[in-house]
């Protein structure tokens, strides 16, 4: 495993509200990040992502012209995406179930409901650091495995084509 420190990582904060961007950036700095880039929409962020390497993305949901869900989907599936595996934490006040599911199905890695707290942010980042999930590619989805747990006692249908022995690819 390569040796690295938080200081060497590059984070990207995507948020249309300048004050909230500043808030998130301040918390990231306090956590040890030294290189935090910012964008005010998914469109600007994708352009930036194509120009610079980024190790972690925190994105809002509601933005124009490209919102956080469309941005995430583009990062995960676009041929132009420089890094479809980059961890994406969606930070939003939109906590309605259908919006959370839409974010999950777009391929976000973690979901953080506002208000932002250090504990919540640390938990999400640690989840990414310590328990990185495999990525799934299937007919309708490409992104982090949406199954958080491997329930050995599950007696329901196994709906994945290759559920018993999925093909594994190491990249």
């Amino acid at each position, binding site marked *: 495993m390569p040796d690295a420190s938080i200081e060497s990582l590059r984070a990207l904060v995507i948020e249309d509200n300048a*004050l909230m961007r500043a808030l998130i950036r301040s918390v990231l700095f306090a956590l040890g990040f030294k290189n935090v880039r910012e964008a005010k929409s998914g469109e600007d962020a994708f352009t930036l992502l194509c120009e610079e390497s980024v190790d972690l993305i925190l994105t809002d949901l509601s933005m124009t012209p490209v919102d956080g869900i469309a941005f995430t989907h583009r990062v995960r599936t676009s041929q132009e995406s420089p890094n479809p595996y980059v961890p994406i934490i969606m930070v939003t006040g939109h906590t309605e179930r259908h919006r959370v599911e839409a974010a999950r199905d777009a391929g976000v890695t973690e979901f953080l409901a506002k208000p932002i707290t250090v504990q919540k942010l640390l938990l999400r980042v640690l989840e990414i650091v310590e328990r990185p999930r495999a990525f*799934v590619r299937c007919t309708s989805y490409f992104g982090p495995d949406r199954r958080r747990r491997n329930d050995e006692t599950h007696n329901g249908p196994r709906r994945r084509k290759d559920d018993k022995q999925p093909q594994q690819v190491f990249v």
Partner: protein
Amino acid sequence: MSNQPSGKCILIQPGAYPVLAAAGISKQLRDPKVAQAAECALDGGASAIRGAALVYIDRLQTHINRMQAAVATSDFDLIYGDAHEVRGLAGNAGLTAAARIAGELCRYLDAMGRANATPDATLVQLHLKAVVRAARAEDETTRLGSTVAEVLATLVNKKLAEINAS
């Protein structure tokens, strides 16, 4: 390898990625001093966080005025947008009750919109007034704010149950 969704379900174990999995980062993040520093950044009086929070408080009234103005024209999309802003901002400005009440209003308007139903204007205005009151009284959370939020949540649940039953 293409990252387009494919017909066959495969699992991909990122090897070189994420860089975040590099040794040492986890240890750094788990250092209690790091969390403490971040908490200080979030709560501290002299930090940039505090300045940002004060701006949030100043902006709350603007959001609420816009929401109240929107009631007159029954522009529930605008009310939802502003309530969503308040919900996101107020929590980090220490206005927990205002954030909760705005969140309930968002939940109600979102559900009504998805059901293609017209929101109850009285219920919306009750929420707006409660948000204003909670935002103006910083001790509202410990005094009445939590109770008001709970009562309004009960009302929202009742209204949504009516919609679901119809």
